[in-house]
């Protein structure tokens, strides 16, 4: 009996430990003010209003990939942006693929150190949640070297020579919401039913996930004020099976015909639910999931909300050229800066009607011109997310 008790206690401890590990990274307040076209940059309060860099300065850039190119995701996106800059003659770029396995991790630190010690680079770029610790160490050791890290906000402001690039998920959500609400009543597309109900499978009921959701609901409501949004949370980012159960329930019980999965790997469970029922479509998040999902699931992925890493890097150099730098800060990039967007080729192009496409580009233009400001759930204590969720509950 003692042994059994011990076993159960251990099991409990482990279970708790594992759920705790599944949490999303902490988020700091973004210093960037709401996007308002070109004005956004000034409002983000550049750290140094240095004199504009000399005309036509060619930056020497090192891009350290903590994995390999060809991921059809963030690494490739960053590379495409840097390629574009290089082609335009604005930078010279050295890309170093450091490998992505745990065995390679020691090399990440040493490569970062070597490249920093070299001293010939104006900027060293890296990204993702795996790099902040290595970067912090290098940034402390080489205070004169400038660094940029994309899609990570772990140590914002702790190193005065690092800029953290983050992405405005509520802007992205707004575009996806606009798209989904336009599509969900377009019964000329197969598997679309006439009911204006769309679904959202989120990871954890947390400010970051709700930021996606808030934009999603606002965008959907702008298209159709009667829209219903079925919101479910898997309460972790790993349990694909439970995400699938939620997806099945949304599709079968509440007639959702489009489900947006925003729950890490678990979100793909919603795509599997759509596949199993044959009655719904899926929308991906962060990178173009049509390229990374298996062919079955990619076929029913209508589009994906995008974090445009490449565009955000171009924006960074545009700002630098204009004499605005953000060292030691986080910049939160929305549609205005090209930081987020929506996939508009492949299935989107094939299935979306002209009216849907027009609605999406209009929404994009309106956010760009400042006509629409998408609310954010981050730092919001007014309870408007809860209210909105209740209002759109099917």
């Amino acid at each position: 009996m003692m042994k059994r008790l011990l076993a159960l206690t251990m099991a409990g401890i482990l279970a708790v430990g594992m759920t705790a590990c599944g949490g999303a990274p902490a988020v700091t307040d973004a210093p960037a003010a709401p996007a308002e076209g070109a004005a956004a940059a000034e409002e983000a309060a550049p750290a140094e209003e240095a004199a504009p860099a000399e005309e036509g300065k060619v930056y020497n850039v090192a891009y350290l990939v903590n994995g390999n190119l060809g991921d059809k995701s963030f690494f490739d996106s960053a590379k495409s942006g840097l390629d574009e800059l290089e082609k335009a003659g604005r930078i010279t770029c050295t890309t170093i693929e450091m490998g992505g396995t745990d065995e390679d991790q020691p090399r990440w630190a040493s490569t970062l150190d070597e490249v920093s010690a070299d001293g010939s680079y104006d900027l060293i770029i890296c990204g993702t949640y795996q790099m902040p610790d290595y970067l912090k160490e290098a940034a402390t050791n080489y205070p004169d070297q400038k660094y940029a890290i994309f899609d990570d906000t772990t140590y914002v402001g702790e190193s005065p020579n690092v800029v953290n690039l983050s992405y405005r998920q509520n802007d992205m959500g707004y575009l996806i919401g606009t798209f989904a609400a336009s599509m969900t009543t377009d019964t000329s597309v197969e598997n679309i039913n006439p009911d204006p109900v769309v679904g959202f499978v989120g990871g954890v009921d947390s400010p970051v996930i709700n930021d996606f959701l808030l934009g999603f609901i606002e965008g959907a409501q702008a298209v159709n004020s009667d829209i219903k949004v079925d919101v479910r949370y898997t309460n972790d980012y790993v349990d694909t099976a439970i995400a699938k159960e939620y997806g099945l329930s949304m599709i079968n019980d509440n007639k959702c015909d489009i489900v947006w999965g925003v729950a890490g790997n678990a979100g793909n469970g919603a795509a599997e639910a759509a596949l199993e029922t044959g009655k719904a479509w899926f929308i991906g998040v962060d990178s173009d999931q049509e390229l990374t999902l298996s062919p079955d699931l990619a076929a029913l992925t209508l589009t994906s909300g995008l974090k445009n890493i490449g565009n955000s890097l171009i924006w960074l150099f545009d700002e630098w050229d204009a004499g605005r730098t953000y060292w030691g800060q986080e910049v939160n990039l929305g549609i205005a800066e090209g930081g987020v967007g929506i996939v508009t080729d492949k299935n989107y192009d094939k299935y979306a009607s002209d009216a849907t496409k027009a609605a999406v580009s209009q929404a994009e233009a309106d956010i760009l011109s400042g006509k629409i400001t998408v609310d954010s759930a981050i730092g919001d204590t007014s309870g408007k997310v809860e209210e909105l969720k209740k209002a759109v509950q099917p």
Partner: protein
Amino acid sequence: MSNLLSNMLSPGFFFSIFRISAPILYATLAAIVVEKAGFANIGLEGLMMFSALFGSLASYYSQSWLVGFLVALLVGVGMSLLMGFFAFQLETDIILVGIAVNLMGSGGTLFLCKIITDITEGKAMASTTGLITSKLCIPNINIPVIRSIPFIGRVLSGHSLLTYTAFLMCILTSIMLYRTSLGLNIRAVGENANAAASVGVSVLKIKYIAIAFSGLMSGFGGAFMSMSYAQGWSQDMVAGRGFIALAAQAMGGGECLGGMFSSLLFGFAQALGIKFSSVGLDSNLASPIPYAITIISLAIFGFVRISRAKKPKVAA
């Protein structure tokens, strides 16, 4: 409320109970048999993770779900024998071995997945979800006559092959434990290893068989997770089912039938939580429902057992 009822009375609701219960049932059977042999295998979660990963990988590289499924079983058995080697031969505490397997099941599988597939992590953790298509998954079975019965057909027919085998295994395990000499030996070793040894039972061999059986069941469970329930392996996808099974084993009184009912109870509770969320119950309230029901049932079970144990004393 009427919505909730109509959602609950749909065949889909009852169908989902079986689907949710199946992987837990496998792990519960694994826990039952080792418990009968007198020790605890808390590494079921990790074993399932390994089986899930290698099952999906083998299925992809061979382009055959059957090969993938067999490899999942093999990996489950192999890993569990290794656990046995550490625990019985090298005399490591079996609980510690279990913890080690669970930790490896979380981090080690990701490591292996990256090494084997060369998939790197840009945004998402490496996974095999992009490799596995429907035809590489374990097929669903439509049962000829039953499928045409209204309602019941939609509850009982069309499940994954492995959902049916889960309940079949439950019966077979029960027969094995109570109707075969192997089962007798397992129980004898669990009751009193020295007594069993004194009548010529090889305690070590029986313990190995028991832990291998738990590995086999974990193999079934892992294959179900990555090749049927979800398409492909991703990190921590077993998501605690191996631990819930330990509770289901205790709740079911360590017997197969009881374990099956506890698994079904858990499946019912989970399905119920999902239906509650379909009518807008806050997910923070809906998702703990299965766990709350498990704890409450465990408490009731414990209470009943204690009061039963007390009765004879009072009579005496």
